[in-house]
């Protein structure tokens, strides 16, 4: 897998090139710790889901005469297996396909391992920018960036704190142009 490239490059110094025929993929990856963060998140939500399924099925087995105990074991077991599989695989896949670029003209986001989504948000349309750090994010020293346009927000999750701050500041700089929508 391609690693991050560390060429120097000041914001705002890029050249304007022709309107391209193709959209080359964005180059920047999220922070590798994103995988651990998402794994922990999936594990927590998975555990809750398994708990609910187990409670429901074992409850049914206890109180409904027709419902045998082995069905409860089976349902809970399958759910548990799926939850483990999900927590194990999906963070890697998500991380692998997440790419973003912050160019002076627009933010370019690409993500999704199943349905792949490409989002282009012109800097001139961005109204304000957030960085967010939830309790889990802070455990891993990560933050997400939210770009707000008049047609809804776009998200870049799981960047290292410093990177998120840098991304946010660059966006704010590029976006600081009055524009009547």
């Amino acid at each position: 897998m391609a690693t991050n490239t560390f060429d120097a490059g000041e914001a705002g110094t890029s050249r304007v090139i022709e309107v391209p025929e193709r959209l080359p993929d964005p180059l920047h990856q999220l922070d590798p710790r994103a995988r651990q963060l998402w794994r922990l998140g999936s594990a927590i939500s998975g555990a809750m889901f398994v708990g609910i399924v187990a409670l429901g099925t074992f409850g049914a087995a206890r109180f409904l005469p027709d419902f045998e105990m082995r069905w409860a074991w089976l349902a809970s077991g399958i759910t548990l297996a799926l939850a483990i599989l999900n927590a194990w695989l999906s963070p890697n896949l998500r991380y692998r396909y997440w790419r973003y670029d912050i160019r002076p003209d627009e933010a370019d986001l690409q993500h999704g391992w199943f349905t792949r989504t490409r989002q282009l948000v012109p800097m001139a349309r961005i109204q304000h920018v957030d960085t967010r750090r939830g309790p889990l994010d802070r455990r891993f020293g990560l933050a997400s960036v939210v770009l707000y346009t008049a047609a809804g927000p776009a998200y870049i999750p799981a960047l290292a704190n410093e990177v998120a701050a840098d991304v946010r500041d660059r966006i704010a700089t590029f976006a600081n142009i009055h524009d009547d929508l």
Partner: protein
Amino acid sequence: MAESDPHPQSSPVEPVSPPAPATAPVDAEWHRMSPRFVFVGTLRQLRGLVIPAAIILITGNVGRGGSELILIGIAVVFTVLAALGSLIEWWNFRYALTDRELVVRSGIVQRQERVVPYGRIQAINVSEAPLERVAGIVRVTVETAAGGTADIDIRAIAQDKAPQLREALAAARAQARQADNGIAEDATGAASTVATETPSATTGGELLRRLSTPELLALGATSGRVGPMAAVVGATLQFGAEIMPESWWDRIPWQQAEALQSVGVVASLLFVIAALTWLLAIGSTALAFGGFELRRDGDHLLLQHGLLDRKRRTIPVARIQAIVVGEQLLRQPFRRADIRFESAGGEAEGAAGDSGVLFPFLPRAEVRALLGQAAPEFATDPTVPMSTRLPRRSLRRYVFGATVGWVVFVGIAAAVLGLWLHRWVDVVTWQQVLLLLMATPLFAWLGWARWRDGGWVVENGTLLLRWRSVSRQTLITRASRIQRREMTADPLQRRVSLASVQLSVASGLVGGHYGLAHADRHDTERLLAMLGGPRHEVVIHKVPATVEPS
């Protein structure tokens, strides 16, 4: 909650130096809200407890030994908690005015840092509620064009400092706007909450077009209201049968009623229902759209319509983001169309923006001329051929999608009615199901029509995107009005190099989203690139070394 905070603050004095990570703007001074926020915030939080407390006091058995003490204890605990919460909130909320933007930090569990470039500020509002007035503080909110509510909410600023803050923000905004395109008139600074004169939508302005009576009748006769009205008529008949007095039932000559089974009677009954439905549709359309007038008064469009309840609406022309020209299935053969608009609410109006009908019924050939007068930015012939169409290989998906949807719907409906509801509804016969399934080719045609109509064309920065749900729709917008461009492709689409495109314009709280499924992937990429204009090359920016190899 607060105790688990792993990032202790560094300095207790105000203004505060930026704590730990390099997330702070370089040479900015951090400010906290007025400390009086703690007092007001505590009272506000306690206010929510007044009613439960009163209920407990009234219904509970107060007065029995020692219960007052418990109640007082609970009250004290709540007060302390509320005060503590407000204190932490106050402590965690900081704002700074840097040279280019307003930065606000907030949040206890979820830490948030919001950056608003001065040039993006739409409105600065200062307000005070009674409680705040007593405490001598005001609330300052800052709005951008994103969303409808306050984007920055500084809830407690000392009364004497508020004008200063507002002036500073207004001046910064004026400067940012001037530095940019020199839109000086718009940026006279002091104009923070400008209330430009909104013309009252009565009869002012130049009349652009009025809906004539024949047009109104034609609108009703071809309207989609036929569907809902059919439901109303059906329900009325059903209900009528239910509430009919017993004696009436007895009077019905049942021998003759056997004839109801005969095809002729059923057909004529259906005909009566249809005619009734149709008349109702025309009537309700006339009520809603009767006397439809589109006027223009300088920078505003004035809409009014309705026979009984006269609806009036004012739309700033400059805030219109997109136009959608619709051609209903029944109107398409007659070349009649309707025009709708997407508008981002006005800065002065403070409206969240919305969408609606600009004109409900007119000859397709007149659309361009009317738009030329009403919204010149979007004046285009909506019938121009699309330069990019859907590829042959996506036809299969459109036809399949439309027909499978229908078959599944019929199947589920038959199953539900036949298996579960047979106690209340007469048993569904397989003939009926077959009859419904005979409509499947109709849906196959619809799928084909969707495929045939889909496409787009971009010329001189104007985009036309065409698609069909049932009626044919053509979106007209400017590349500069598009807030976000998006393409998605699932694995099946990727396999054959197809993609779906979605374009978003500002409208209401969530925006207006328009798209087309199963277009050629390269065409889609070209469209997305083209709408972005000349592209800046990618600058790889420094990223801290990764901790572990991937």
